């Protein structure tokens, strides 16, 4: 067998092996998207109910609460970045990190310090590689987010928020995550979590609908005190679920592209290999014919 032909065969084989892997990963993520999406859908009633309740308190009472009032001067802002633990998801992690960088730039230009809270190994790796500091990290659970982790993150954020800026606390919290729009589209999203922007992301009440007057038990301030941490947690959890669904969708898309590329590589190399084989045969025939001619003309 000719050397050229052997090289092509090798390349075909390697592309085929790669394709098997990427195909498998594609199928795995495709099956996980369903589950991740179902979890997003399942957690929606909770966050909707919480959001409704928060709007109710915010609209129907004039309590001055630390979580809803804007501080006069914001010294430090926290940025929470939701990345994934694994790569092979196209632009998934780079787009969320890029978005976070832009946000940090904006915050710094407003004279605020920025401290980071990272979720997912990729964001941690990104920061570690650049030797940049961050407050806290959570890794290992981005594929199927747990409520407990969301709770932990929520507590950490709230604790940082309630601390004074002089002691390293933050006055503002932003989250950056990939929102699952559809199987083919995942959009990085920035949300300011605290101080609260109740309007954002909430289905707006129709015009003319007057929200009823609420009775609070025990009283509005206490309700707010215990409602807002839960609200934050539900938003964090929602972001985690969105991010995981988006990650699976991004992986599926990336792996589909990889499989398709492997396909076209295999096709191209098969053509080249055939060409090489044919030219080898042609050469052999020419040699035989030439040899026979030489023998018979003696």
């Amino acid at each position, binding site marked *: 067998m000719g050397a050229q032909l052997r090289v092509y065969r090798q390349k075909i084989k390697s592309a085929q092996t790669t394709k098997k892997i990427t195909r498998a990963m594609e199928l795995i993520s495709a099956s996980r998207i369903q589950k991740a999406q179902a979890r997003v859908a399942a957690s929606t009633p909770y966050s909707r109910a919480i959001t*409704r*309740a928060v709007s*109710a308190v915010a609209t129907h009472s004039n309590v001055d609460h630390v979580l809803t009032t804007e501080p006069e001067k914001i010294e430090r802002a926290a940025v929470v970045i939701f990345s994934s633990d694994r790569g092979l998801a196209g632009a998934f992690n780079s787009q969320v990190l890029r978005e976070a960088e832009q946000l940090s730039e904006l915050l710094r230009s407003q004279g605020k310090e920025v401290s980071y809270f990272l979720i997912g190994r990729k964001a941690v790796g990104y920061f570690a590689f650049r030797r940049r500091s961050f407050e806290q990290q959570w890794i290992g659970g981005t594929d199927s987010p747990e409520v407990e982790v969301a709770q932990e993150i929520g507590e950490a954020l709230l604790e940082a928020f309630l601390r004074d800026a002089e002691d390293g606390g933050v006055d503002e919290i932003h989250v950056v995550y990939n929102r699952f729009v559809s199987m083919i589209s995942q959009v990085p999203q920035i949300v300011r979590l605290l101080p609260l922007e109740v309007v954002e992301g909430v289905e707006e009440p129709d015009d003319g609908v007057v929200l*009823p007057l*609420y009775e609070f*038990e025990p009283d509005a301030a206490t*309700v707010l005190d215990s*409602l807002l941490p*839960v609200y934050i947690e539900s938003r964090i*959890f929602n972001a985690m679920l969105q991010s995981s669904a988006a990650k699976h969708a991004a992986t599926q898309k990336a792996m589909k592209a990889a499989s398709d590329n492997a396909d076209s590589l295999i096709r191209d190399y098969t053509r080249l290999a055939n060409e090489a084989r044919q030219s080898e045969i042609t050469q052999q025939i020419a040699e035989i014919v030439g040899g026979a001619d030489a023998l018979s003309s003696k």
Partner: protein
Amino acid sequence: MAVLNVSLVSADQEVWSGEASMVVAKTVEGEIGILPGHEPLLAILAHGEVRLTLVGGEKLVADASDGFLSVEGNAVQVVARRAALV
């Protein structure tokens, strides 16, 4: 007769939803019973059970902790971090 549209929601799923004629829940201030036509209410739930009386008269008991009870119109929402039917 008016009925209450109840939904019982935990952090990761909707545990139960349907119609009921009465909801009894334990808030931090004590037990509260809600019948159709109740005024809008937002209360913090104490740890404990939520008892529902369904339209047919059957009873349903759920365990909810760390949550809220919200009543608006005839829609009752029990929102708890952890909730499960008993």
